[in-house]
């Protein structure tokens, strides 16, 4: 029983990260039907900004978190402005290939400046390094921090999307871009805003991973990015609560698979389950199965 609870705690910490990244994929897909492969590298850049803030500038955790989210926001908007906007009316495959190009550009630029070596965050002290024991269950401050910050960010995102004017515009553009434009919504601004939100979340995920695992490198985004993308598809791509659910589910499945003796087959099992779910529910867990209009 205790082991089960401990594994769920492990799964939630891992799943939170996937969920934060998955939100960026799903929002961008929802609004311009683009799988933004560069998203996972924004997460990596977020981790590096956090590294610079914490170990070079000596800032605390919260200022570093904000700095990294802010930087990623700007980066996300810039990428959209330079790389994707000129291709707004091009084929989807052209945009997709551009996204892969941007992804490689970010990875190898970082490698050029920061070298391919693993970098380590400064070790946490005091409150940040504490662990709490309840019976046999161990929880660290960092795990709590990850879970709490993820939930706060998700609630904030829901409020923005559901209650604000720009959120309403986002929903409108994702439903029908042309109609939204005719209604006087500035589509370009709305899309920029979507990139900004997604990138900020990825930046937050990056720095959380940095303090939790302590190890960052220029290619750290590739695998989590892939899994977060799977999480987004899993929950139903384009649907915000779906990405959150998908992130947690993938995190927990992964932990259970390796926790119960199948660590050799972890990724295989995760993807097998994905295939099964997509056979049964092609639109994802929360997706509505709408017929394709011909």
């Amino acid at each position, binding site marked *: 029983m205790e082991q089960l609870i401990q594994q769920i705690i492990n799964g939630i910490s891992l799943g939170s990260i996937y969920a934060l990244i998955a939100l960026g994929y799903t929002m961008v897909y929802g609004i311009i039907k683009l799988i933004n492969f560069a998203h996972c590298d924004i997460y990596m850049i977020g981790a590096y900004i956090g590294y610079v803030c914490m170990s070079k500038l000596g800032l605390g955790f919260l200022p570093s978190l904000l700095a990294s989210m802010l930087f990623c926001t700007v980066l996300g908007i810039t990428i959209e402005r330079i790389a994707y906007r000129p291709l707004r009316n091009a084929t989807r495959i052209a945009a997709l290939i551009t996204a892969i190009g941007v992804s490689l550009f970010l990875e190898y630029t970082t490698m050029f400046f920061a070298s391919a070596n693993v970098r380590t965050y400064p070790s946490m002290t005091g409150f940040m390094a504490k662990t709490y024991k309840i019976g046999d269950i161990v929880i660290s401050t960092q795990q709590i921090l990850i879970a709490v910050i993820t939930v706060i960010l998700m609630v904030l995102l829901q409020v923005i999307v559901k209650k604000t004017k720009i959120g309403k515009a986002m929903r409108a553009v994702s439903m029908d871009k042309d109609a939204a434009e005719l209604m006087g919504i500035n589509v370009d601004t709305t899309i920029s805003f979507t990139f900004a939100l997604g990138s900020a979340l990825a930046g937050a995920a990056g720095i959380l991973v940095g303090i939790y695992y*302590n190890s960052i490198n220029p290619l750290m985004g590739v695998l989590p990015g892939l899994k977060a993308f799977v999480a987004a598809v899993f929950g139903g791509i384009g649907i915000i609560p779906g990405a959150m659910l998908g992130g947690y589910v993938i995190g927990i499945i992964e932990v259970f698979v390796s926790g119960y003796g199948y660590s050799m087959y972890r990724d295989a099992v995760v993807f097998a389950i994905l295939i099964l779910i997509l056979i049964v529910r092609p639109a994802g867990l929360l997706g509505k199965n709408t017929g394709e209009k011909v």
Partner: protein
Amino acid sequence: MKKVCIIMLLILSMVFAVSCSKSDSDTIKIGVNYELSGGVATYGQSSVEGIELAIEQINEAGGVKGKKIELVKYDTKSEPSEATTLATRLMTQDKVVAVLGPATSGSFMATIPVANQNKVPVVSGSATADVVTVDDSGKVQEYAFRICFTDTQQGTGITKFALENLNAKQAVIIMDSSSDYATGLADNFTKVFEEGGGTIVAKEAYVGGDTDFNAILTSIKNKEFDVIFIPGYYNEAGLIIKQARTQGIDVPILGADGFDSPVLLDLAGAEALNKVYFSNHYSSAEPSDVVSDFIESFNKKYNKEPDAFNALGYDLGKFVADAIERAEKIDGESVKKALESTKNFEGVTGTFSIDENHNVVKDIIVIELKDGKQHSTYKVSN
């Protein structure tokens, strides 16, 4: 850009030609064929630092056979195909009597056919893969030598240490399933540990690049075991150690030479690095005259503490020079014969002899970490 490159190359080759023709008679040339850039550049660079120090000392002391040694240095860019090309060039154009390097097993093996063909020995200080000096049919590669232990010897050494020094009866293995090095060590550990009366309680796997090991650690936590063996590299091992200690697992943790990096300390933190043991080629904490002399002169030349690759490179330089001194004539064939007959060579990584498979027989050093620092060393003989 291209033009500039070509001109540069021309100038370089001219300088080279001049220097070659001038120094032909009074020097002995040794090729240095190492990974100076690319993926495993630190291994190559460290080895070459050691080699250069060794040759400098030999030349200051009068050289070998009354002649000075001249190093001809090339960069393999960490690519096996480049290593082959450069080995050919060293043997046919530069006419060296022996080639040192490359550092990694894959690149080193790529140069062996060239060595056999040109009858010039290649010697590596750090190619530890089991198959290096013998071919598929078990026949010895005539012109290939190495002065480091093999992965099997290393695995056996650390397992014996677990059984005898730590009295371990039950062990858990957490291995990097994406690397031959790690799976080989894990298999060897399992075999020797079970032969010694121990049992493997659990065998878990991860993939290089993973960062989250909490699931594996939680699942082994409730089992009974005396040691954890982590065959793998420092990047993941550091994180596993940190997460294990956070979860309250405080049994001894064992590893191999893949642990040998300052990054291990950065990742795991000093607090977690207690009761951590790993096998290595060399330890600076070992008190012997040869070693302290080496550390002192290395410090003087490079202004830093030597690591295992520096030490292996240093030994390699001295070892090959020693063979040339003993060789009948100064050519590849005689040097090869002299290398084969090396007995009880005293180096900083131990005293060793060359066996019939062109491997060395030497003690394995096990280093204990305490608060992240090398605390004490043990010797395990094979």
